[in-house]
């Protein structure tokens, strides 16, 4: 029961994860597993109404319950003098930013909006006390549909946002796009609802806050993908404590998929409660609570059109979207249906004219923010559905129409009409590999024969591109981000030659402790087992921006590579001095420095490290010790791409869709650990299949969440999924030191379109041209009628 000690664990090796021994034995500690001396528990009363005035709150019975230390409302938070805000971190021109306070003051705006806080000695009492708080509500009309919410007379979420419009945003060129449509030989047109999703990381959100009123320091253990962002927003907007007095620690984190990026009220409430009672306070969401508090994903209503010329070439794309923001603007919410969405509308295609218009709309629902893929699945779904619809209206095979319109391999860098400059790609390479693996021509023969027998098979393609590795800081700053997107790393070689690496990323299942050590093992020539990786503690490492947007390898990994290079440079200077040679004559190979041509006279990295720490004999001007810090700001996004293919069988009697095969050929650049990359692809595909066939958050006309428990919302089970077939092409990223791109989101970006295209293909004999997700048997059965 020990670690991996082999020396072949460098970059490119499918070494098993070093994270796993603690996880498979139950030893790993997640936030809710932690206990501190004197710890008490906090629960939060939440609005049962989508929209209601608060006339009064009677907390007296709850306060009188044995074991209750305090019951608090918004008035108490206001009276305490903390800022109490839950801010948005991405600003668009003209964005409406209504106040979002840690608890509802006089109005609740969604089912789940926080109303009161209980702090009690044990968690059962803390839950009991919630039942004893009496709120006199004044129920009002609510609305959940983002398009209907913009109609005149619709219930308003915020009085200062007329027609519930949070922002009115566009990208591309309307005039040239309209002209393309005027000249089009064919137009493909679709109305698409991109269904609202609930993230469902298996670990519910939790926080354990320990405020010390003597030192004024707050230690906050929490379920976070980005501890430094949380520290910043806790300090500036919620608690008003100085940033250096807050230490945010991410213990083991049980999945995120975006839902643990955002700064919510709840973790700030736990911290504030600790400040009130002078004891450590733990808050852990129930699953049902996560359904009405974790930011949801997607929720778009869109009309999309593709203009096609007589030769089957795409000449224009026009998209009009109503994107739900929910009741308040969550941390990065405005960026998701804009810069992570409109900018992807060119897909893999050479599209000369694009125009995308988006209304961000307040609704009486849980706030919507980044969820695995964040904007890019929605864009890819529209583009790839329209491409298939274009194939249908022109009578061109879906493969052929894609080939005809791809950006050619010799056309990179390719400047799209929607801001992004694709740096590299070989789209037909991935397509050809996928078609061969699936047996495309044979499938068409089989499909035709099956139809003769009343059996309906369908094949769906999704030839996707995405932009991730977030992101060049100046670029995102110019687009409204109130944050940088560079990443930090410290590579510290100890006196004995052992290495500790600190990263500003914060993994929660991605295997960074393994892959980041692999990067360093290759860069320094040090045994893999001699390298430790530390993440997720604002008290331990320089500021970093965390893990989301498929950024950790591209930005965090690059920062590590860059810091390792600085270490080698310094060690080379010292080694040259020790070997009494000129620095330019020193070679570095497999962890050893030697004079060119004389490898027998060498200094190993540990030898040099020891000398660097002893500092008895260092070259002039060289400081002692051996470590380096890097703050790496990427030159561009990275652009993974690929081809996903789904094959389905649709039962003509029941409408049931069976996923027979799912094949993915992804190009994520150089691969640090193939086993981990495959795992990321599997997980992403499963979430996309979940969106396309099973999952949806359902609100009724009064904005009540009907799919509000795990009993009602279809988180996919094992038997919902096929085995996945995965393969790769490798087109290294040209602008980062490792040639890596990102892989965390690719599967969820590509797969919904592949599955729905397959279903529509299967149903083409019935004249079906589109079915909204999730493609349930009921919808299919009705479509076949």
């Amino acid at each position, binding site marked *: *029961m020990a670690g991996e000690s082999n020396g072949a664990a460098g970059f490119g090796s499918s070494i098993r994860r070093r994270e796993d021994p603690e996880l*498979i034995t139950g030893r790993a500690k997640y936030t*809710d597993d932690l206990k501190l001396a004197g710890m008490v528990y906090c629960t939060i009363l939440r609005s049962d109404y989508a929209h209601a005035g608060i006339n009064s709150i009677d907390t007296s019975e709850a306060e009188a319950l044995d074991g209750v230390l305090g019951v608090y409302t918004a008035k108490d938070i206001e009276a305490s003098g903390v800022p109490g805000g839950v801010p948005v971190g991405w600003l668009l021109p003209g964005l409406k930013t209504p106040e979002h306070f840690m608890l509802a003051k006089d109005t609740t705006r969604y089912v789940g909006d926080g109303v009161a806080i209980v702090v009690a000695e044990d968690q059962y009492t803390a839950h009991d006390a919630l039942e004893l708080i009496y709120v006199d509500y004044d129920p009002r009309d609510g609305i959940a549909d983002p398009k209907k919410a913009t109609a005149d007379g619709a219930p308003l979420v915020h009085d200062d946002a007329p027609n519930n419009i949070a922002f009115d945003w566009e990208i591309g060129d309307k005039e040239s796009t309209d002209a393309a449509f005027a000249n089009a030989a064919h137009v493909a047109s679709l109305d698409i609802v991109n269904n609202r999703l609930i993230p*469902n990381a298996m670990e519910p959100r939790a926080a354990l806050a320990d405020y010390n009123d003597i030192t004024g320091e707050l230690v906050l253990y929490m379920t976070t993908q980005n501890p430094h962002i949380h520290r910043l927003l806790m300090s500036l907007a919620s608690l008003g404590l100085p940033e250096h007095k807050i230490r945010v620690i991410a213990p083991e984190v049980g999945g995120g998929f975006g839902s643990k990026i955002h700064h919510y009220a709840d973790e700030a409430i736990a911290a504030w409660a600790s400040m009130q009672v002078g004891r450590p306070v733990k808050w852990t969401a129930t699953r049902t609570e996560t359904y009405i508090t974790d930011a949801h994903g997607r929720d778009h209503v869109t009309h999309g059109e593709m203009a096609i010329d007589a030769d089957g070439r795409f000449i224009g794309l026009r998209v009009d979207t109503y994107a739900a923001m929910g009741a308040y603007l969550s941390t990065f919410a405005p960026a998701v249906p804009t810069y992570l969405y409109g900018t992807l509308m060119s897909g893999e295609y050479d599209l000369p004219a694009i125009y995308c218009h988006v209304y961000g709309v307040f609704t009486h629902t849980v706030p919507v923010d980044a969820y695995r893929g964040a904007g890019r699945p929605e864009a890819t779904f529209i583009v790839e559905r329209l491409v298939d619809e274009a194939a249908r209206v022109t009578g061109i095979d879906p493969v052929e129409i894609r080939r005809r319109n791809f950006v050619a391999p010799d056309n990179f860098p390719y400047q799209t009409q929607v801001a992004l400059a694709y740096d590299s790609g070989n789209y037909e390479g991935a397509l050809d590999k996928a078609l061969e693996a699936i047996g495309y021509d044979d499938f068409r023969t089989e499909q035709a024969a099956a139809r003769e027998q009343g059996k309906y098979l369908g094949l769906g393609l999704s030839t996707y591109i995405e932009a991730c590795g977030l992101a060049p800081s100046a670029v995102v700053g110019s687009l409204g981000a109130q944050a940088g997107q560079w990443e930090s790393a410290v590579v510290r070689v100890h006196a004995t030659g052992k290495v500790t690496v600190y990263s500003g990323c914060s993994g929660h299942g991605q295997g960074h402790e393994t892959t980041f050590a692999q990067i360093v093992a290759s860069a320094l020539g040090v045994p893999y087992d001699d390298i430790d990786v530390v993440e997720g503690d604002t008290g331990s490492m320089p500021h970093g921006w965390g893990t989301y947007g498929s950024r950790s390898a591209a930005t965090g990994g690059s920062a590590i590579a860059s810091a390792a290079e600085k270490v080698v440079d310094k060690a080379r200077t010292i080694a040259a001095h020790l070997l009494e040679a000129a620095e330019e004559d020193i070679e570095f190979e497999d962890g050893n420095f030697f004079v060119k041509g004389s490898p027998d006279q060498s200094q190993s990295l540990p030898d040099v490290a020891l000398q660097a720490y002893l500092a008895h004999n260092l070259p002039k001007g060289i400081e002692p010790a051996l470590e380096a810090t890097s703050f790496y700001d990427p030159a561009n996004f990275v652009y993974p791409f690929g081809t996903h293919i789904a094959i389905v069988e649709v039962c003509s009697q029941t409408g049931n869709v069976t996923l027979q095969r799912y094949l993915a050929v992804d190009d994520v650049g150089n691969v640090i650990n193939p086993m981990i990359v495959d795992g990321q692809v599997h*997980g992403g595909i499963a979430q996309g299949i979940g969106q396309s066939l099973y999952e949806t958050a359902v609100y009724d006309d009064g904005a009540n969440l009907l799919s509000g428990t*795990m009993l009602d919302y279809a988180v996919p089970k*094992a038997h919902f999924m096929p085995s996945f077939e995965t393969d790769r092409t490798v087109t290294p990223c040209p602008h980062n030191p490792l040639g890596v791109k990102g892989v965390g989101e690719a599967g969820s970006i590509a797969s919904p379109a592949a599955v729905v295209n397959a279903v529509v293909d299967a149903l083409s004999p019935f004249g079906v041209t589109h079915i909204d997700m999730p493609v349930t048997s009921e919808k299919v059965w009705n479509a076949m009628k």
Partner: protein
Amino acid sequence: MGISIELEVNGASVSEEVEPRLLLAHLLREELGLTGTKIGCDTSQCGSCTILLDGQAVKSCTVLAVQADGSEITTIEGLANGEYHPMQQAFWDNHGLQCGFCTPGMIISCVDLLSTNPQPSEDEIRHGLEGNLCRCTGYHNIVRAVQTAAETMNG
């Protein structure tokens, strides 16, 4: 009022005074410090809290502690016996976990599955894991892990 219960947890005798409403999952986590058993939902869907009660997989969030009086319990902490259980080993070898939160319950369920069906087909594995949700792996490598463990344990 507390009720006295006695049970054996991972081979050790345990005597506790518990509230009648205390869930077994909370007894294990809060009173006995066995936090390997996770709580991922409140409707008995996710299976993160699965343990072996008298050799059978149960969701410990759906069992009262008093109902476990007199029983033998194995949690994830009690599965390894000097070396990893073949199922733990197979999860590690096959990358059958990512965030690890569902893993303790998933591994226990998989152990239970093979105890009743030592050579399951892929379809039987997938249906056998009906009561355990994983959001990270898409189940692909979990199925591989169960297949590997079945080979090891039958070999």
